[in-house]
């Protein structure tokens, strides 16, 4: 019988292996699965390639994972923010790789991976340094660049409500990359603010159908990253 509920964040991330590529949802704090990331810090899994829109803030969440030297490469659109300190420092020292991808291309490459589309053409980045070395093609007199699907071994996603089939809803702009990331990984691991009974999520309002989800763990009171950053907290907590 189908029951995708895991009992702890640690149990949920247990099968993540060294060298894995991991999609991590979130746009800044909104939608970032901070408890799953911290479980991955606890686990110490290394040599990871992380795909996420940003590169973490302060010394918690994704920034803590990077600071703990578990990440060899980041694929993202905007690694620089006012409160991002860990990534910029390591990047300048050459201690972490960066693949910079325009935000819409990042989202579409992830969706493509989930949808079985190996590559697509886009107008974004044409005539810029980010298109350097990429194939181009003209359609109707306009030039487009070929972009490839971006798949992963795992995705770590934060949602609002889930059920045991893995159906998900999200909260406001915390939805962002969650739905496409759920589609694009071999194994999708989700933290939900609440787990509901089957049928309690209106089938018209399911945003991620359960077929894309392998494990769900309830984290009913997730940490607010911005508060932790404001308090200059560090993970592991000291």
């Amino acid at each position, binding site marked *: *019988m*189908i029951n995708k509920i895991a009992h702890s964040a640690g149990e949920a991330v247990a099968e993540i292996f060294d060298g894995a590529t991991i999609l991590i949802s979130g746009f800044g704090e909104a939608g970032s699965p901070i408890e799953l990331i911290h479980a991955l810090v606890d686990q110490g899994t290394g040599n990871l390639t992380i795909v996420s829109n940003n590169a973490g803030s302060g010394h918690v969440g994704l920034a803590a994972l990077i600071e703990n030297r578990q990440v060899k490469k980041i694929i993202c659109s905007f690694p620089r923010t006012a409160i991002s300190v860990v990534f910029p420092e390591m990047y300048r020292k050459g201690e972490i790789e960066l693949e910079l991808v325009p935000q819409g291309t990042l989202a579409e490459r992830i*969706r493509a*991976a*989930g*949808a*079985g*589309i190996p590559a697509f053409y886009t107008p974004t980045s044409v005539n810029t340094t980010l298109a350097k070395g990429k194939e181009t093609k003209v359609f109707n007199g306009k030039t487009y660049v070929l972009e490839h699907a971006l798949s992963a071994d795992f995705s770590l996603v934060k949602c609002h409500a889930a*059920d*045991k*089939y893995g*159906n998900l809803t999200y909260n406001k702009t915390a939805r962002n990359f969650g739905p496409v990331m759920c*589609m694009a990984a071999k194994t999708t691991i989700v933290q939900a603010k609440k787990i509901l009974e*089957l*049928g309690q*999520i209106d*089938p*018209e309002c*399911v945003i991620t*159908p*359960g*077929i*894309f989800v392998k494990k769900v763990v309830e984290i009913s009171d997730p940490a607010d990253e911005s508060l932790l950053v404001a308090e200059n907290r560090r993970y592991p907590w000291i």
Partner: protein
Amino acid sequence: MDLRENIGWPVSEMARKVAMDINDGAYVNLGIGIPEMVAGYIPEGREVIYHTENGLLGMGKVAEKGTEDFELVNAGKKYVTAIPGAAFFHHADSFAMIRGGHIDICVLGAYQVSQEGDLANWSTGDPNDVPAVGGAMDLVAGVKTIYVITQHSTKSGESKIVKECTYPLTGKKVVSRIYTNLAVIDVTENGLYVRELAPDLTFEYLQKHTDAALSQYNAK
């Protein structure tokens, strides 16, 4: 000689054999017609979630008379129901599930299956037929495992399991296993292997009524 239905397993038994090979927790798409029967034979204790490509995951049974909803149909345009825990989505998302390799098993009918696992099930090539493909090519290109359920031979007695398909292909090297009234046959890298024979049939009889070459797993 008509091999349909009077020799070997009845269709219900063929459907039951397919059902036995669907594991607990599988996401399954059943083609229109005979494949739909498979849902009735899933063993107790196994939970299977049905996908219908017109936008529903968690399809339930056919709607009872009087409760039909014109806006809740399956791919065959039959009125169906949705189970608790179902989800509706649009066509691009539905085929993302198919093309993206998220559906575990698809069960389809066939005009012909070749010894390489090529499938022909969408067109007889007859120029008088209006061509219609639906989702068949997407399903065989994207679903992880394709099972075919079919009578072993056509009404006129020709083998449907052939060296090479003469009908237009739906996909090349896509079928994993074939369930007919005479046998269950695996498509492997080394050709077709008979997994199970219908009662009272000999391998020689099966081979005689099959265009493609068959092998036996336990042959010395």
